[in-house]
């Protein structure tokens, strides 16, 4: 017996697929997750209802979701920017660490300045540090054709060790000299905090607003400028780029630096919006950089979609904190998140192929 369904390659990709397939994937994930929940003795409907309630339904819950979403948005943008040129930058994690280091430095060094100046310098230093860190990967690739996947990943570990060194193993500029028992960083003064913006009773982190602005700029850069056009040509056809006199080397370095700068900006927001200190352990536990890869994949590398995906994933993890307890292991939330990614990747196939019912023998021998 042969399967009555078969895959046929799509000649064109209709527009509705851009939103239809992600929605279908999400639905698939919910169904699969429902089976898992049911098997563990939970009522799937009530769990989903609680996720919606704790993640999105109230203004309070939504405000907390935006807090979780902000770093995802930055690392998601960072990954999208690089992936769009075919550069697999998985070093968002380390670039974000460097961003926290840069921003914490600026927040401490310029604390006598007005708030606007402090925030601006924190943003600039966060981007500079993250961008420079990623540029190392770009330069290595442009000059020596090293594999960016490996170098960017390895630099994550280097960044983590550097971060630990600054707080735990040295009396660096960042370390609070008064912390003896458990070493911590110097706290920023209140003046350096990035204040939330309130719309009604929803509190929007300032960093989230910055992320939205960054997403719009990235979208414009990639869709409406010469730079974006050249990146597109290099990504789709290196031969055609050479033919048109577009130099790929500089673009590799620039795009990597841009990607790192966005991740670094996420690090700055982490310091300015939330932690207000260079928290070496806290930022490493979060794994924002790796989640950014998931965000970029789900958003199909579209910077504007990345914001929505970040909010969605932010809501999920936020609801996860709320749900988890003795009767609800934290692993179940992770399982749900994993299933969503899994079906999203599977859904990618549907954008390139269509499912067709094939004519069975019962329809008559027609071949």
């Amino acid at each position, binding site marked *: 017996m042969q399967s009555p369904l078969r895959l046929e390659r799509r000649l064109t990709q209709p527009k509705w697929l851009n939103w239809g397939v992600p929605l279908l994937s999400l639905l698939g994930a919910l169904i699969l997750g429902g089976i898992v929940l049911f098997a563990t003795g939970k009522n799937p409907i009530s769990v989903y209802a609680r996720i919606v309630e704790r993640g999105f339904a109230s203004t309070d819950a939504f405000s907390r979701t935006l807090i979780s979403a902000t770093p995802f948005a930055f690392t998601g943008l960072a990954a999208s920017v690089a992936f769009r040129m075919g550069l697999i930058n998985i070093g968002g994690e380390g670039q974000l660490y460097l961003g926290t280091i840069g921003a914490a430095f600026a927040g401490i060094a310029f604390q006598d300045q007005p708030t606007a100046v402090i925030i601006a310098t924190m943003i600039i230093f966060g981007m500079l540090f993250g961008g420079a860190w990623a540029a190392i990967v770009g330069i290595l690739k442009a000059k020596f054709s090293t594999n960016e996947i490996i170098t960017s990943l390895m630099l994550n570990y280097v960044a983590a060790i550097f971060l630990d060194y600054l707080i735990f193993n040295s009396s660096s500029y960042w370390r609070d000299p008064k912390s003896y028992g458990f070493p911590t960083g110097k706290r920023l003064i209140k003046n350096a905090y990035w204040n939330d913006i309130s719309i009604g009773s929803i509190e929007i982190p300032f960093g989230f607003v910055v992320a939205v602005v960054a997403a719009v700029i990235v979208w414009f850069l990639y869709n409406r400028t010469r730079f974006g056009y050249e990146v*597109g040509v290099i990504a*789709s056809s290196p031969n055609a780029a050479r033919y048109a006199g577009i130099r790929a080397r500089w673009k590799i370095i620039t795009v990597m630096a841009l990607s790192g700068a966005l991740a670094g900006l996420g690090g700055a927001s982490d310091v300015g919006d939330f932690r207000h200190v260079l928290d070496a352990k806290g930022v490493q536990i979060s794994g924002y950089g790796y989640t950014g890869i998931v965000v970029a994949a789900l958003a199909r590398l579209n910077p504007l979609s990345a914001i929505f995906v970040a909010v969605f994933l932010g809501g999920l993890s936020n609801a996860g904190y709320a749900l988890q307890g003795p009767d609800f292991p934290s692993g179940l939330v992770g399982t749900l998140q994993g299933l969503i990614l899994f079906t999203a990747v599977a859904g990618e196939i549907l954008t390139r192929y269509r499912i067709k019912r094939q004519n069975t023998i019962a329809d008559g021998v027609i071949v």
Partner: protein
Amino acid sequence: MNGIVKRFPGVVANDGVNFEARAGEVHALLGENGAGKSTLSNVLTGLYRPDEGTVSLNDEIVHFDSPRIALERGIGMVHQHFRLVNSFTVAENIILGERSSSLFMDTSAAVERISALATQYGIAVDPSARIWQLSVGEQQRVEILKALYHGAKVLILDEPTAVLTPQEADSLFRVLRSMVAEGRTVIFISHKLDEVMAVADRITVLRAGKTVSTIECATTTTRDLARLMVGRDVVFNRVIRANHAEPNNIVLQVSNIDATDDRGGQALKSISLTVGKSEIVAIAGVAGNGQRELAEVIGGMRPSTRGTIAVNNEVVPNGRVRKAMTAGVSHVPEDRLHTGLVADHSVEDNLILKSYRGAPISKMSVLRRRVIRAQAKETIEKYDVKTPDTITPIRLLSGGNVQKVLLAREFDSLPSVMVVSSPTRGLDVGAIENVRKRLVDAADSGVGVLLISEDLEEIFALADRILVMYEGSIVGNIPAAEANRESIGLLMGGGSLSAENN
């Protein structure tokens, strides 16, 4: 095959095609690009299922679900793009996919059988060589051997000569003849009239998805076939030129150029040539004798190791594409879809590939979409490009329309010199005519054209002067009026004219 209908979204690729082939004949399937030849063969090998119609094998209606099942029933296919594993040996590729009861492959028995088959049909290939070591012609022989090894009684070849040199094509024809002499059937898909006449016993002509006619090769002529194929008379005669070439008014001067190929070997040896205003200079030669490297050096894609290139008497900096472009060089590469164009990008984005850097296409680094779209619409109209809209990806266009887009962009850049490589390769008769007319128009308007082609017929139709390239050197420089096929062919093969006179 009876009344085969196959529809794709928006097109009927086969519209009631009838086709039959006998044992012991070479049956050619002739038609323009898009006539439905490949679709028909894919139906025959089980890759596509027909929407209507039946396929019979030895009077029995058959139903193939996959190429594998078709091959089990004795129908093998050699595709245009080979399906070989580069790092495997010839023998390993041939036995690949064979169901074997033991865990280990018994290659030695296979190697013996392969060698026996190879000798039987006069196919020269070393079973222990690895695929990447072989030339394209040899790889094709491996594909044929693979089909024979798996017991193909019917062998389908899709445009087999597109990748071959004339000599390789001749040896392919010999192999095919020895196969049909054994009672096998060869289905030969092509749009080249001459080779169909040379190799086929019978010819079925397809046009726009329908069978036009099936005729005995002996009772027809090239001209009749061309008429059947395109539905009207096509004349490939010397094109009449409005302007007279000015070979002494030099627009492109190449002096003593040396260059290396991708592997670092010497590809060009002290090449010197000139192209005058309104002149079409053709470079004849078998592919792989340095033509691609020469085109790339002139276009600035490949740095030369010695010598200079001057356009309008000004030396162009070495290996700088953009400098070459601004100096007035236009380069139409052989690989249209992946070098001259970006296959996945839209028609309008491809049209600006060389002009996006400045006004009016971009302003302050920002692309002006409205201008781009308006210009694209104008260009599509002017050059009669068949595309649903300006945002369709270029890879979805037919070969002829792809080339129209590429040429449109290059003509509109108002060059002084055009380097054009195999501009009509793979195109159908109607598109060939169009491309040639455009090239002649360009020359008439004053552009110097350097035409690199393997197609002697094309060279004789267009060129004012013919250069022959052999192993990286120019070995002949003959005014078209004094040239004949024999002398050019001799030079292309490495012979010399003076030797012939002795």
